[in-house]
């Protein structure tokens, strides 16, 4: 009976999200700039939660406690990168915003393909991004499925849990575009933050008498769990490169970069970056949940570490309605990322793959409809991969970061180096991405625990510079449009 009450709470939550999402885009004109960039009109609060919802994902809410539980101090990297992820955006966000208004860009790859005068580059970038997007969405779907599995005490199977949450996301993204994503994220973000604090502190106090006592017990039982380096779960080099690749790669995610085009002004963009580190502070109690689980269950009994948060609830004898609320918050974390990634992926499909390949361009209305169609297609493909695939949550995301960070040299060259050429851009990107996947797929040996993405990035920069210097410079007037 208790599980029915928990599920009812989750269903109510889903209905609220669906209503907010469906209402958000009402009365707006159906155009590309509205569907993808909210007519460049979003204010600070909405932008803050729109960006925050992307980072406060299943990775953070379920993977974060999972890492604290299984890898200890290695999980501090999540705080570091949550806080720093948007800092580089201070440099390129306003530039992208200004150019977007001037030349009517709504996606990251429209900017890059215009700078390098290459539709091929647009298509290559899009394929790389879509591969990473699929990994990212798969991660969120698995998070949603865990939530339903726990809430129903195993009655709702994995495939059905993932499907329910994703159908809701598909409906409101299909109807409302980025405006629906933004407004649902405001609701979901506020909901998650309140629950995270309440839970993290509750577990630490109720199980150990407070966080200090909790950490003292953990340190006594497992002296290296709260450290990194030799004998701990993560080496110095791995920690260093995990933070670095995440910080450099965060704003390179196309669905986040393209939010430069949704902001009302440069001021709003910088306010969002300024307050973004608060999301790292919100993550502190989320990690407490994982640490609190260490003395409660052994890893062999728990199974995948990502299940630590749902497992903790089951053991605490909470009223079913409270369990429902907490699980709904975990679902909010997954859905608030699913929606923005799905929207981003569909936008990339329509504007950066289909349009550059066509001789006769679609009308504005047709591109908006095409994007809606790709919302459905991308959702379906991701769902199949989530249901049929494997791996734990965080490992999936780290693999994706390695390829996404390879867009960094293109962005740097666009804004700061007029000498960069089309050939240099394409060669550098291909070398960086292929090298990264070579390591991930174990064709190339690892180098001292350094993240594959960082190694690929170094090669990417070198190839971009060398090939650009060996090839004919691009038109001066054209390239200087992007550096001014």
């Amino acid at each position, binding site marked *: 009976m208790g599980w029915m009450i928990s599920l009812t709470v989750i269903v109510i939550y889903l209905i609220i999200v669906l209503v907010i999402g469906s209402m958000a885009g009402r009365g707006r004109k159906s155009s590309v700039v509205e569907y993808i960039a909210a007519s460049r009109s979003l204010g600070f609060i909405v932008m803050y939660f729109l960006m925050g919802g992307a980072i406060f994902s299943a990775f953070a809410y379920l993977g974060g406690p999972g890492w604290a539980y299984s890898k200890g*101090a290695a999980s501090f990297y999540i705080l570091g990168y949550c*806080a720093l992820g948007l800092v580089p955006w*201070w440099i390129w966000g306003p530039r992208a915003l200004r150019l977007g208004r001037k030349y009517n860009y709504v996606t990251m790859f429209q900017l890059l393909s215009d700078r390098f005068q290459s539709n091929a580059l647009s298509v290559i970038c899009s394929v790389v991004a879509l591969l990473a997007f699929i990994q990212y969405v798969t991660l969120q779907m698995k998070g949603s499925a865990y939530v339903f599995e726990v809430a129903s005490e195993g009655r709702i199977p994995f495939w059905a849990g993932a499907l329910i949450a994703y159908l809701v996301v598909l409906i409101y993204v299909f109807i409302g575009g980025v405006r629906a994503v933004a407004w649902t994220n405001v609701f979901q973000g506020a909901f998650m933050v309140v629950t995270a604090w309440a839970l993290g502190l509750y577990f630490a106090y109720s199980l150990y008498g407070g966080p*200090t006592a909790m950490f003292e017990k953990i340190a006594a039982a497992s002296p290296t769990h709260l450290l990194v380096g030799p004998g701990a779960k993560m080496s110095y080099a791995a920690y*260093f490169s995990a933070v670095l690749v995440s910080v450099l790669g965060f704003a390179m995610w196309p669905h986040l970069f393209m939010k430069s085009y949704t902001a009302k002004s*440069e*001021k709003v963009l910088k306010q969002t*970056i300024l307050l973004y580190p608060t999301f790292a502070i919100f993550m502190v109690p989320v990690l407490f949940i994982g640490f609190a689980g260490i003395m409660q269950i052994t890893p062999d009994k728990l199974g995948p570490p990502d299940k630590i948060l749902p497992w903790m609830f089951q053991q605490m004898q909470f009223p079913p309605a409270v369990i429902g609320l907490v699980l709904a918050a975990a679902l909010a974390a997954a859905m608030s990322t699913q929606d923005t990634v799905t929207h981003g992926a569909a936008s990339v499909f329509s504007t950066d793959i289909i349009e550059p390949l066509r001789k006769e361009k679609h009308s504005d209305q047709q591109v908006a409809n095409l994007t809606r169609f790709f919302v459905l297609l991308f959702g379906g493909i991701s769902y199949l991969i989530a249901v049929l695939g494997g791996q734990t949550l965080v490992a999936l995301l780290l693999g994706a970061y390695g390829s996404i960070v390879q867009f960094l040299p293109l962005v740097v060259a666009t804004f700061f180096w007029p000498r960069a050429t089309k050939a240099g851009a394409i060669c550098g990107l291909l070398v960086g991405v292929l090298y990264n996947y070579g390591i991930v797929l174990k064709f190339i040996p690892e180098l001292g625990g350094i993240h594959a993405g960082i190694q690929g990035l170094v090669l990417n920069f070198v190839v971009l510079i060398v090939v650009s210097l060996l090839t004919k410079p691009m038109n001066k007037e054209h390239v*200087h449009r992007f550096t001014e």
Partner: protein
Amino acid sequence: MSDTDYGIKVFRSDLPQGVKTRNIIFFIILSLIILIQCCYWFFANSVQPILMGMPFGMFFVVLFVFLEFLALLVLYLLESKEYKD
């Protein structure tokens, strides 16, 4: 550097020297914060002392999140007069 060459172009040509200097200073400060976060273990790879309910390593990471916020706040306030909107 003239407008017509292909050299690295960090700043817009019309930006005053004072603004350029300020941006360079904040770039260095924020880069240092990123580097320190990347190798927090060099400074604080220990459990004790436990401060504000967090092991020292975690406290150090959170402290630098706060310092990052302060740096961004100062930069924002200095830049705020320049926003046209």
